């Protein structure tokens, strides 16, 4: 159970990437939080089995994949399990694990892209991603439909994705 400093550093460093992958499995950010915590516990228990000469992320991603699948099963999400079957889950985990550096670069780009949003755009994003927030609640409070609110969010997300793309492209040539 005694984990090395290096192991603690690794597990801390890869939290965001594990969360992003788990979210792509469970589709709900709060649930992804819970699955991430469970994954961390398992990683902690398995720390003695980790071979430090091998990359950490693919090893950790495997446990995240199993935990997410177990979560879907325990929640009786049959429909979602049909969409994300074992093969697709493995494919997504492998590709996410291979994408580490790009992930970091995109996350850095996002920080500057958020700064470029207009105040009202930023405010809406903040409300949407506040803990425990939901589109349905927000829309009801604002007197609009969930679809209308989702459309507004879609335009902001689209702008952010484009901005990240442009930032990455600009950095590639600088």
């Amino acid at each position, binding site marked *: 159970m005694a984990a090395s400093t290096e192991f603690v550093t690794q597990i801390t460093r890869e939290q*965001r990437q594990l969360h*992003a992958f788990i979210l792509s499995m469970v589709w709900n950010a709060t649930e992804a939080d819970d699955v991430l915590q469970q994954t961390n516990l398992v990683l902690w228990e398995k720390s003695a089995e980790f071979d430090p000469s091998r990359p950490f992320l693919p090893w950790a991603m495997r446990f995240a994949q199993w935990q997410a699948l177990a979560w879907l099963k325990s929640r009786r999400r049959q429909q979602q399990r049909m969409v994300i079957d074992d093969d697709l889950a493995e494919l997504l985990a492998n590709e996410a694990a291979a994408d580490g550096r790009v992930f970091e670069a995109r996350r850095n780009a996002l920080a500057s892209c958020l700064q470029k949003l207009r105040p009202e755009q930023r*405010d*809406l*994003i903040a409300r949407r991603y506040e*803990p425990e927030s*939901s*589109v349905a609640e927000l829309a009801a409070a604002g007197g609009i439909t969930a679809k209308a609110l*989702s459309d507004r969010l879609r335009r902001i997300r689209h702008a952010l994705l484009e901005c*990240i793309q442009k930032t990455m492209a600009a950095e590639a040539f600088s």
Partner: protein
Amino acid sequence: MNTSDGNLEALLNRLVDGIASEADEQQLGELLRSSPEARRAYREFMSLDSALHWDYVAVLSPPIACESPLNSSTTVSLSALRFGRIVAFGVGTIVAGIVAVIWHATIVDRPPNEIIALHQPQSATNAPKTDSIAALLVDQVGAEFAVGRSPDGVRIVPGEYELLKGIIHLRFAQGADVVLASPARMHVRDAQHTRLVYGNVRVTAPPAARGFTIATDAADYVDLGTEFGLRVDPRSGASDLVVFDGQVNIADPRTGTVLSEVVEGKSSRYVDGTAETAPAINENTFPTRGAIGFQRWQQYEREMRADGRLLAFFPFHRVAGENVLVNAHEANAVAAGRIEGARWTTGRWPGKDALLFDRDTDFVELNIPGEYQELTIAAWLKLDRLDFVYNAILNTNGYDLGHIHLQLTRQGHPRGGVAVAGRYEERVVGNPVPLGHWTHFASVLSTRTRSHQVYVNGVLALDRRWPVDQVLRPGTCRLGNWLPVPNLGPEHRALRGRIDELAIWNRVLPLEELKKLVEAGRPDLLWNEE
């Protein structure tokens, strides 16, 4: 994401916003299975959604004034979207400015506490020659030097030094750390050579300082990148060496010939260049860097116990009844805390206790009765992890007007204040709190200025302001946890880490006083560099 693929993007938006249909989901499965490009777009979209969820505070950073907004037609009247909650945690207009704050802690720009040179005329110090500084005095506790044999400020130039009282920590120019306990006398020759006339010293030499030599009358000790203790008896002149790590070569002081090699765990005694049987030596004979910090804190603890302006002071000393956290303050206005689950462990120094919180059910319950206009709450913490959306340091049980919260977000930024009716404004500054390092938190609440500040290691990290009057009612609180209210914010807020010391004042401590708390309680001078 390939932005020409508007259908996929729209589908993914519906998915994360919780309004996707079964047909949407099926279509997504087919796309992901058949197209690497769709999987890449999916991965990028989910990473964005995860990052926004994870870093929602950063979203609120103010825009860069000179840059134009992104090309999107979205406008939403946010007044219509605000939540209707009464209390202020988790609500309000938050303006978070993430500003990098560099914790200033270089050796030279923070002089140690005042050093006493007894009856010391200015001209009698070892006057500095700026080109020949061999070492810097980086830390000390209670140091008193003999007349004519003291450092000039923090500068150690070649010359004689005699330590009458206290412990000092010197860092030599090539990296060797030397901790010297009184009474001791030494002659510093240069950055790599020092003669120990008598006294106890602990040396830690990194590879850059390989060859660092301490000479004695009995023998010379050449460090080969290691840690060792050395003591020279003032009467007999015998030199005793204990090697804690690595290797030390013992050389003849006259010829330089290597007499013996002493490795980790071994000890030796030399008298006049001749080996004798080494006595058993306790490692604690040799002072550590931490010993300086611990002694400084013990002095501070004595002062705190008698400080009439304090409400409570929990120094975190383990007592026979292990489930009691003693309030050591003499006035005793606040009862002892009740320890539930949290376990005793080592604190900032060996021999100093702390409580470990590492399970969801661990906490200490305290009762701080009464109403207050001002409060300052200060604690030393070493965080292991931030497992939850909010991670409690000290939170009032439940949630009602006047209750207080001091916690950390999962991103490592402070959060909390007092529960008030209506909205508040908040500014978050600085880097996230580091994990695995002893860190000082101070929460300053004032109804007069209607504001709350959190300082991390004496640097502002959170500033929250509200427009209404609200008296402070801390009441029954949990240290390291929160007794939740159903359906009010994230329920699980258990701390993962250690707490060593908690002090509460019924007044606002100015920043200078907060900085003194950090200074008095820091594990050692170099702790924040590690």
